[in-house]
């Protein structure tokens, strides 16, 4: 990615006043893609899926899987119900982008969800919004009512013979419900306990029926692909991970917020130009690129690194949700890691023992270190624990809890050792 991000015009959330109102959205080309797929016989379901697959929209919820490919996993209809579950349960520290779509361009996401439902022959869509986002949910519900009144939703959509219902459902405070199978459990009215895979949701999802789960932002990209074609879409941003992205920038920057730019923006440009640089003229110490679970990078690891999955992997981290947390030179990494560990311990659903107990141990040991009671061997104990936990649980929450521990300790080992050496145990 060269410097052309500077001339980029936002597409997911363009700067148009009142775009959340259906009239304004339509005046600006809204629902054109839905009309095309519903009314133009050239747009078969297969063609829609293939176009989305070719565009290579990679899931914006963090996993980065090809969206069209995911759709193609849905089995052929057997006459029973099939579902699309839209994931609006963002809650990984550093991630706060989906609420922007709900507030500023809900119809774009809605249009994408409807096109997805058409492609996969789904007649019921559930939109799962985190319970804390009640305000944003209300804005979205208004958009849904508008779409029903204009015939974009409901029975015989735009005279096409397609019937699609959409229901907005609220969570009630549980990070784990952002995990796709935990979200299904929550949608079924239960505790958010992740399910063992396989069977995958495309085979057995909601109430045992075929279900696809897509992130809100992922679906908002779909109308762009239908309107402009896969080639146009995949020419935006980084090769292999294309398209517009809502970047969240938070922490020690002068101008935090959500910014829409192409994938592949250099990390240092995002901090120094987009985010206005480090607060108080201080030096940069570290960056967590895509939500609290993504491995932290030291400032000296950032040269030439850009915000796409390939570049991030080479650098030793992950793009995740592109929710970047910036830390200045005065940041205490022991405190930071303890707070991240506290989060994952609090949010472990408790179903698998390695995670339920392990996240607690990680936190307890880090409290010991932070309070001046730690020993050098505690650092190796922490690293050993991560290998005991990782890959031994039903879902990836334990992995997500382990990555920050492993990488923060290895990348800032001096700081952790110094804290242990100050402790009472070190004097003995």
């Amino acid at each position, binding site marked *: 990615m060269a410097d052309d991000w*500077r001339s980029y*015009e936002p597409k997911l*959330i363009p*700067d148009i006043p009142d775009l959340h109102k259906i009239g304004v959205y339509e005046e600006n080309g809204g629902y054109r893609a839905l009309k095309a797929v519903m009314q133009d016989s050239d747009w078969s379901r297969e063609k829609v899926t293939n176009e989305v697959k070719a565009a290579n929209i990679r899931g914006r919820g963090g996993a980065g899987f090809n969206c069209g490919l995911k759709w193609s996993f849905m089995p052929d209809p057997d006459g029973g*119900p099939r579902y699309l579950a839209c994931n609006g349960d*963002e*809650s*990984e*520290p*550093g*991630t*706060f982008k*989906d609420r922007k779509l709900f*507030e*500023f361009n809900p119809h774009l996401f809605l249009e994408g969800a409807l096109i997805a439902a058409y492609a996969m022959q789904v007649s019921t869509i559930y939109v799962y919004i*985190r*319970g*804390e986002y*009640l*305000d944003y949910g209300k804005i979205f519900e208004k958009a849904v009512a508008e779409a029903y009144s204009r015939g974009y939703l409901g029975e015989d959509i735009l005279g096409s013979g397609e019937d699609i219902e959409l229901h907005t*459902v*609220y*969570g*009630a*405070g*549980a*990070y784990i419900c952002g995990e796709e199978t935990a979200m299904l459990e*929550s949608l*079924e*009215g*239960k*505790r*958010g306990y992740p399910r063992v895979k396989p069977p995958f949701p495309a085979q057995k999802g909601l*109430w045992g029926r075929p279900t696809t789960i897509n992130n809100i932002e992922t679906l908002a990209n779909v109308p762009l692909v239908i309107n402009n074609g896969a080639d146009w879409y995949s020419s935006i941003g980084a090769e292999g991970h294309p398209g517009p992205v809502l970047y*969240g*920038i*938070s*922490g*020690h920057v002068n*101008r*935090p*917020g*959500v*910014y*829409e730019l192409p994938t592949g923006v250099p990390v240092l440009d995002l901090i120094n*130009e*987009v985010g206005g640089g480090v607060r108080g003229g201080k030096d940069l110490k570290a960056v*967590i690129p895509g939500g*609290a679970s993504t491995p932290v990078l030291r400032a000296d690891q950032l040269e030439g690194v850009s915000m796409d999955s390939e570049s991030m992997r080479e650098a030793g981290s992950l793009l995740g949700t592109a*929710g970047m*947390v910036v*830390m200045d030179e005065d*940041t205490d990494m022991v405190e*930071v890691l303890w*707070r*991240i560990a506290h*989060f994952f311990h*609090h*949010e472990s*659903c408790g179903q698998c023992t390695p995670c339920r107990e392990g996240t607690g141990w990680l936190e307890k040991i880090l409290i010991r270190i932070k309070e001046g009671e730690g020993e050098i061997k505690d650092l190796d104990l922490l690293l050993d624990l991560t290998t005991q936990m990782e890959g031994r649980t039903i879902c990836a929450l334990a992995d997500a809890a382990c990555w920050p521990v492993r990488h923060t300790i290895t990348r800032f080992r001096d700081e952790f050792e110094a804290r242990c050496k100050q402790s009472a145990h070190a004097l003995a």
Partner: protein
Amino acid sequence: MAEQDLSFNGEEREEIEKITSRFPNNKAATLQVLWVAQRKFGHVKPEVQKLVARTLDLPEAHVHGVASFYTQYYKEETGRFVLDVCTCLSCQLCGGYEILHHLEDRLGISAGETTDDGMFTLQEVECLGACGYAPMLQVTNGPYVNKLTTEKVDRLLENLRNGQTPEFESMAMPHLEKRNQAAT
């Protein structure tokens, strides 16, 4: 309120029917009906959970299991206003703990407690998804109050004591021009 006095009125029953109609079975409506109950009673104490179970014809144990799993359901009575202060990563870096401790000082309680006058319950919570507007808090499952300073917190407490709850605050997307200016 005694257990036998707890009930949903006609309007609420209608709302609950609308909710159950969205799902293939009643169980799926559990979270949504707990929300209806919490809006009405201000909490979902065990007797309210029993009402929800009765209304949906579900085992009480199931409703209790759900209510206890999710942090946003109040399992006991709260103050008139619940202040959920985020101290998670981005808020931690931007002074979330200073805000929490300032509130503890001002209200004379610790996080997790309710003031004697029943006005405020103070809670430390995990990420509320407003990381770019840190530090922040949420008032009783409602509006977010962003970019907090101790002065802003004091004003908020005064307003709440006068019965004024904060309005929905839209945090606009930064303008493209600003980005271009930043680039030059």
